[in-house]
């Protein structure tokens, strides 16, 4: 026998289930209980930068939209700073960079409004391409799935992004790149998340 390491074990994850809305978005479940639901305003009124909308679906292995998913959003402001003590720099008053959105019960579509993030610092050296961190939970998902959304009008930054570049299969990097819609105001980007099957989205063990 050797000495005991005194670490605790992380609490194991369990699925959020089909009724995640009750806890995290009760208005969508069909009742009003809180004065304000959390995660409804990602950027706040004072955020600088380009206002954008991101929309998409979550698709399962049969090609069907997932209609009971919840997605959480975590992003930097337009200067690449996160709203956090270690976030890299100051953010605008009211900028949280965090939000949550659900997929529509009928269509499976989701959408959120925010500002386009700037380039956050890299892990040691260098700089990351603009990206939005996403975390997806739903019935049938045993532990939340982490992925990242990049932008298709950031070719140069994407080509140098340290995270995209560790994905060995270049063809799979494309699953993380949101597509810019033409002629929309605010600017819309489309990002479909495929849990399984053809063009399965890259998920990260962070």
């Amino acid at each position, binding site marked *: 026998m050797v000495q005991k390491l005194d670490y*605790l*074990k*992380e*609490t*194991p*994850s*369990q*699925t*959020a*289930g*089909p*009724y*995640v809305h*009750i*806890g*995290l978005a*009760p208005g969508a*479940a069909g*009742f009003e*209980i809180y*004065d304000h639901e*959390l995660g409804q305003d990602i950027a706040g009124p004072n955020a600088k930068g380009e206002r954008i909308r991101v929309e998409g679906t979550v698709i399962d*292995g049969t090609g069907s939209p997932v209609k*009971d998913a919840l997605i959480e959003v*975590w992003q*930097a402001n337009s200067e690449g700073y*996160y709203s*956090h003590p*270690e976030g*890299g720099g100051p953010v605008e008053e009211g900028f*949280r960079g965090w939000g949550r959105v659900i997929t529509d*019960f009928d269509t499976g579509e989701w959408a959120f409004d925010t500002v386009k993030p700037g380039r*956050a*610092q*890299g*892990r*040691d050296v260098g700089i*990351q391409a603009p*990206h939005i*961190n996403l*975390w997806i*939970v*739903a*019935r*049938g*998902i*045993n532990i*939340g*799935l982490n992925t990242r959304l990049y932008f298709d009008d950031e070719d140069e930054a994407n080509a140098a992004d*340290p*995270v995209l570049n560790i994905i060995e299969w270049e063809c*799979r990097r494309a699953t993380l790149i949101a597509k810019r819609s033409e002629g929309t105001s605010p600017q819309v980007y489309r990002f479909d998340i495929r*849990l*399984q099957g053809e063009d*399965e989205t*890259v*998920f*990260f*063990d*962070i």
Partner: protein
Amino acid sequence: MKSKGEYYQRDREWQPPALTPDYKTSVSRSPRYAMISLQNSISEITGPTFGHNDVDPIDNDLLRNYAYSEQSPIGERIIVHGRVLDENARPVPNTLVEVWQANAGGRYRHKKDTYLAPIDPNFGGCGRTLTDENGYYFFRTVKPGAYPWRNWVNNWRPAHIHVSVFGVAFAQRLITQLYFEGDPLLDKCPIVKALPTQDARDSLIAALDLNATVPLDSIAYKFDIILRGRRSTLFENRLEGN
């Protein structure tokens, strides 16, 4: 000099795999490719923070937060309490804990739940609170009922409360379910059994805590929540790559 580093990697032999065929819905919702291992950057070591402007004091009292004046939900009155700690056993203060659950009859207040057990007019079924400076939290609620669900023809969920926790980093984000000591349905549940080890399953069972009861009022269960711990680098640590 100590500086803060990355979060300890998730133990994927302890956490549930994506694909657990006995929990049927996981079959078409589980990625088939391996996840890409990502060392933490600023995007993962940061995460949303919450304050007292985000929650109301009544939000953690499910006996009152949706009840008509002078009324109460039906069911066994319980207190759920515990601490949010990290893997280094350090308290996680001021972090948001959200819960949701079925009522005492096993029915959720959700437009998609059609189970024949009735809605309780005095029970919403959700709550939220911030941990205090010692990582401590508590809720008051009714014990949720078991309910049937479509998986195999005759599956019943053990009584459970869904729990969502943030920590201070997006890498710590966690949703789980709290179960109750002594529930005979625990060993039959494909969702519980998505966890690969009995030790992991046991770690989700809240213990009856008679010391924390309010005599002649509410019975208590203790449930500690452990989030990923963070590395302290003992020496200058030039991280490689990226």
